[in-house]
């Protein structure tokens, strides 16, 4: 495929992605930090709904032989160490690598600092990669997937995952309905008293 076409497809897909992130409010620092403080579950709902949908889509596409799966290799040391550091970064940034861009598009100025920090972090890792990949972080198995471990076809495993997620989401929704968690100004700000129309003055330096 030509690079130009790939860029055009990427832009179109990104616009849809960014639109959905903005509408779901999952890009809001208040929603992401709230999720990590277990006081807001909108992030988990968007995430699990997207995983379940992706699993059904791939069960069909792969089951009928239209696509090859592309799972990442299981590198447990790297997955655990990297995941812990990434998670800490998500809490402090109030964003993940994708939603940082949604925050910029929606107008959060601090997200520009998250973006520049992210680019610096990626460059710092790049310089360290030749060394780090020789440590335990480069050790691991192959492209392991659960359905192979269980000895069932991928599409069966994917549909089971989707069904389990749907059950979890029903339970989650009855426990914590999503509308009240949108917050005062659809920003995940759940403090009582602040009215949606109240002007938040940007504090002086």
């Amino acid at each position: 495929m030509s690079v130009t076409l790939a860029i055009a497809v990427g832009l179109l897909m990104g616009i849809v992605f960014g639109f959905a992130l903005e509408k779901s409010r999952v890009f809001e620092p208040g929603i992401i930090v709230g999720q990590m403080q277990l006081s807001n579950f909108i992030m988990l709902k968007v995430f699990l709904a997207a995983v379940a949908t992706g699993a059904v889509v791939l069960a069909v596409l792969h089951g009928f032989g239209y696509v090859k799966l592309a799972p990442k290799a299981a590198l447990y040391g790297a997955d655990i160490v990297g995941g812990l550091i990434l998670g800490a970064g998500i809490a402090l940034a109030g964003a993940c690598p994708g939603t940082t861009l949604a925050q910029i598009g929606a107008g959060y100025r601090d997200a520009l600092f998250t973006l520049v920090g992210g680019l610096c972090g990626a460059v710092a890792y790049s310089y360290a990669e030749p060394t780090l990949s020789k440590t335990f972080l480069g050790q691991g198995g192959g492209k392991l997937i659960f359905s192979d471990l269980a000895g069932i076809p991928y599409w069966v495993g994917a549909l089971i995952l989707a069904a389990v997620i749907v059950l979890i989401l029903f339970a989650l929704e009855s426990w914590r309905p999503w509308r009240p968690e949108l917050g005062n100004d659809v920003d995940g700000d759940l403090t009582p008293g602040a009215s949606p129309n109240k002007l938040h003055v940007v504090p002086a330096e």
Partner: protein
Amino acid sequence: MLSQKAWSPYLAGVVIGLLQIPAFLIIETALGASSSYVTIGGLIASWLDPAVLKIGYVARHVAVTAKNWWQVALVVGIALGAFISMQMSGARRHAISPIWQRALGSASPAKRYAVAFFGGFIMLFGARIADGCTSGHGLSGMAQLAVGSTVAVAAMFVGGIATAFLVLRRI
């Protein structure tokens, strides 16, 4: 619909999940976001230090391939899509979310900018160690039933929850 400020998280999640169809059928890859930081970061770094391109990891990411630049276009598109959605609904944002004053115990924008930079730095450093982020390991890896991705997502939530409780104040 398009001018609403908020959709159900389930509707938005389904829309995001459906994006795996063009990703797998057209680009023959899964949704992801964090590799693009290496592509753009590596390119910028190469202006200051051309030797960075000799690192195989960087060379692979800045190469003019459909997958590398598709992902860069994807994240640029995310900013555009969020901007268009915000304009259509009128859900304008303040420069800094009001939750940060409580989370950081400070109204100083400079403090928030410093924390955002540091957070972004370790977020991408961690994502590159793990070889994926919330999109690549989370959305795509878990949908593919990948064992390593599931471990990475669990670690992400453990790291995020611990940091949000121990370092940040309750919002």
